[in-house]
């Protein structure tokens, strides 16, 4: 059953991704002022959305781990954090490529950029803790705390364009969505494509975490057998 869902998610992600690429490069018109470079926006925003969603999953599963101490929640958490880190990295790299063309600078210390960079460091910390702390229980607990605290940065990133002076574009404001219907359709398809892709990757990364645990268990068993 799960394998069938994974298969459909994979097919769905591939098809919507191809549609999104067609829409970005051939269907949606260029933005009047910025020109073709504005089209980075569609996958930049979609990546940001999926990273927020991934960290929301980390937040929920980390809470569940701290409550139940069941390692499976920690494994879901670790799987989701890796995807979140991937897409935050994409946001941090694709943003400056657009910024170089639009602002004339690769990087500015803008509140949204800085808070996103902080998010990236927090989840990098999460992954480093999971990989480097030898005591498993301690690593799980620390990572869960990091995952929960890290998610608090997500609403700060979202509202940073309203709370502080910023040069980052505001697509969603009190006045509504400031893009044309064609642009909105392309953005929504891009978001759907990357969200389906997240759904396809998550169980695979969970299986990797599960296999790591199983291997450690088997190696311990082997040691016990050899000692006997």
């Amino acid at each position, binding site marked *: 059953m799960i394998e069938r869902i994974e298969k459909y998610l994979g097919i769905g992600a591939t098809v919507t991704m191809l549609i999104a690429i067609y829409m970005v490069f051939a269907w949606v018109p260029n933005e009047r002022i910025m020109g*073709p*470079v504005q*089209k*980075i926006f569609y*996958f*930049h925003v979609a*990546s940001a959305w999926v990273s927020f969603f991934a960290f929301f999953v980390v937040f929920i599963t980390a809470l569940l781990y701290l409550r139940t101490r069941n390692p499976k929640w920690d494994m879901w958490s670790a799987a989701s954090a890796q995807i979140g880190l*991937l897409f935050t*990295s*994409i946001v941090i*790299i*694709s943003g400056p*490529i*657009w910024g*170089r*063309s639009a602002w004339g600078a690769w990087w500015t210390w803008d509140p949204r950029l800085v808070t996103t960079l902080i998010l990236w460091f927090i989840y990098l910390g999460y992954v480093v803790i999971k990989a480097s702390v030898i005591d498993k229980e301690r690593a799980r607990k620390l990572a869960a705390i990091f995952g929960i605290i890290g998610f608090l940065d997500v609403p700060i990133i979202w509202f940073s364009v309203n709370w502080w002076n910023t040069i980052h574009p505001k697509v969603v404001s009190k006045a509504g969505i400031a893009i044309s219907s064609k642009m909105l359709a392309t953005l929504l398809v891009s978001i759907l494509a990357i969200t389906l*892709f997240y759904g396809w*990757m998550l169980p*695979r*990364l969970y*299986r*990797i975490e599960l*296999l*790591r645990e*199983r*291997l450690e268990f*088997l*190696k311990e*068993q*082997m040691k016990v*057998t050899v000692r006997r």
Partner: protein
Amino acid sequence: MNYLMAGYTVIWLAIALFVWKMGKDLNRLEAEAARIEARMASGKRGEKANAGGY
């Protein structure tokens, strides 16, 4: 246009590398677990055979 292509190249390269690494890790870990399980199973069979022999 150059910046647009650079942006999408980076995005696709990052995703492709991640998926490649994920697939590689999954295959390696599955093979290693199967290998250890097979070794342990053959070890147990050997133990039983030895116990029967004495």
